[in-house]
């Protein structure tokens, strides 16, 4: 009988990591390009601590957004939830006159509730996720603008509090928010790859009918995913607010496209069923690195969007080529297994 393992190599079949390798290569290529343009900046540790300070605002919401996109859905409203959560926190702090943990918890619960609301709109009312979350993007932003009347809320007086240190302080020369980012990335990686809940997320994105047919409660999983994403978006908004020591009502707006782009650059297709936390993490770093690299290279900040655009297109083109090759490989493999069946039957 034909030894299929030998025909194409086991490594060939399960080369799950190609996309991650490509994304990592793009990251290092960009790093090298900026290093050549401005060696002094990219041998300076301050460049990297700055990157670690600002990248969490993009990467943290992108991590939980990865789960949403793997299910084959989308959430745009997280950018507004990034403002809703810290607004609740800031208002609680103002009312209490101190930087309390309660304020943080209420802010996170607001995010959780907003995510839950998205999930219910999408699953129970059957509103397509794109439309539902466009609606809630306006809704939560409207709530924030009405509540603040467009004014910022300064929080500098609480800088010395435990909450500030725990969320945006420094530990061993590393910004704490980056450690939170790594911690969340590990937790979400574990959920997606080692937990039953993560398996259900992948199945729903891959084949929703199949997931239903094996008894997975698709609605419950989707609602949970949206609730988790709301919670994490609120957390990202809170650390962004504390990082700037000010709450401002348009907080989160710039992260909508950046976080979605991080997920997509990271190799998670919008069609769902596939995707990795590692890819999203590197995708977010790439976007932030470009921003930093462009600025330190001495050109104007207007170049940032242009370079972002080029990198996104290059990354997606590379993924497109890989996926096309994957389709061809799958066809060849199906043919080989069909022939092997014929041989074994005859």
């Amino acid at each position, binding site marked *: 009988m034909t030894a*299929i*393992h030998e025909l194409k190599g086991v490594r060939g*079949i*399960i080369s799950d990591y190609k996309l991650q390798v490509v994304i990592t290569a793009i990251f290092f290529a960009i790093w090298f390009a900026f290093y050549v343009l401005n060696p002094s900046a990219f041998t300076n540790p301050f460049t990297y601590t700055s990157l670690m300070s600002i990248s969490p605002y993009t990467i943290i919401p992108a991590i939980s957004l990865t789960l949403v996109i793997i299910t084959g859905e989308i959430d745009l409203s997280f950018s507004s939830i990034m403002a809703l959560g810290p607004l609740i926190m800031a208002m609680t702090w103002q009312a209490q006159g101190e930087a309390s943990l309660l304020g943080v918890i209420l802010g996170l619960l607001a995010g959780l509730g907003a995510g839950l609301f998205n999930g219910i709109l999408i699953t129970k009312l059957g509103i397509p996720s794109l439309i539902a979350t466009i609606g809630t993007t306006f809704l939560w932003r409207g709530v924030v603008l009405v509540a603040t009347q467009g004014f910022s809320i300064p929080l500098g007086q609480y800088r010395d509090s435990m909450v500030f240190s725990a969320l945006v302080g420094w530990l061993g020369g590393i910004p704490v928010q980056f450690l939170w980012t790594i911690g969340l990335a590990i937790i979400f990686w574990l959920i997606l790859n080692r*937990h039953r809940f993560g398996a259900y997320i992948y199945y729903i994105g*891959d084949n929703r*009918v199949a997931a239903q047919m094996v008894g997975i409660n698709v609605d419950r999983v989707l609602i949970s995913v949206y609730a988790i994403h709301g919670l994490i978006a609120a957390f990202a908004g809170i650390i962004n607010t504390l990082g700037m020591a000010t709450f401002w009502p348009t907080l989160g707006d710039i992260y909508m496209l950046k976080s979605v782009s991080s997920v997509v650059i990271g190799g998670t297709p919008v069609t769902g*069923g596939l995707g990795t936390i590692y890819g999203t993490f590197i995708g977010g770093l790439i976007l932030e690195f470009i921003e930093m690299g462009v600025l330190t290279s001495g050109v104007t900040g207007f170049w940032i969007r242009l370079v972002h655009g080029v990198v996104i297109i290059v990354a997606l083109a590379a993924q497109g080529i890989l996926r096309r090759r994957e389709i061809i490989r799958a066809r060849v493999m199906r043919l080989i297994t*069909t022939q092997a069946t014929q041989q074994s*039957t005859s």
Partner: protein
Amino acid sequence: MRNIVKRFGSVVALRGVDFYVRENEVVGLVGDNGAGKSTLVKILFGIHAPDEGEIIIKGMKFKKLTPKLAYELGIVLIHQERTLCTNHPIWRNIFMGREITNKLGFLRIDDMKKIAYESLSQLELTRMPVETPVKYLSGGYQQGVQISRALVFEADLVILDEPTVALSLAETQRVLEYVNELKKKGKSAVFISHNIYHVYPVADRFVILDKGRVVAEFYKENLTPEDLTEIMISIARTGSVPEKYKELNLYRKSQLT
């Protein structure tokens, strides 16, 4: 299933169907397009709820089922590609929805791979590693993976909805071997097919549906495939079983009225 009626708006898909499967029996459910075969098994698997009638499984009566409940009652549905997640490896597809986990819900991956391998071995499906994504497998191999799922969960009743559609001759032969393997292990199965020559070798009994009704029922030993084809053609043209086979028909007219 007793007196099952299913309507889709003004269209009556099933008109009081009685249908049963015995232990360790393979029933060939045949009939023309629109006869109601798929609707009937979808009700049995809980995808559709019947408008009238009841479903009796292991002595328990149900007005309707859900896929989850059907799964728990030991019913597994095998459909051409529809119940597989093709981007995912074989072992994940076998355990889909019934993962082996620790108390915190974390997957016991090595255990699942081992059991998956053992189950696939019973069907001689070990040419591909259990880590292979299902999209790399031929149609017949994919059906084997689904049957392996039924074996792992010790399903009592396996519903095969057109499992040989779009398969090569050799692969069809393998799928039929898998069905025989199920029977050897004491399982029951409902095999739906348009193709008499696919269903004939594996079925013990044939139930013929026409326009939402059961019109005939025969034991295999009383018919050749050619006889069955003749009966099917007659039912499609005239709505009735040819005179020479009427004595063999287990489904009496009295049951139709």
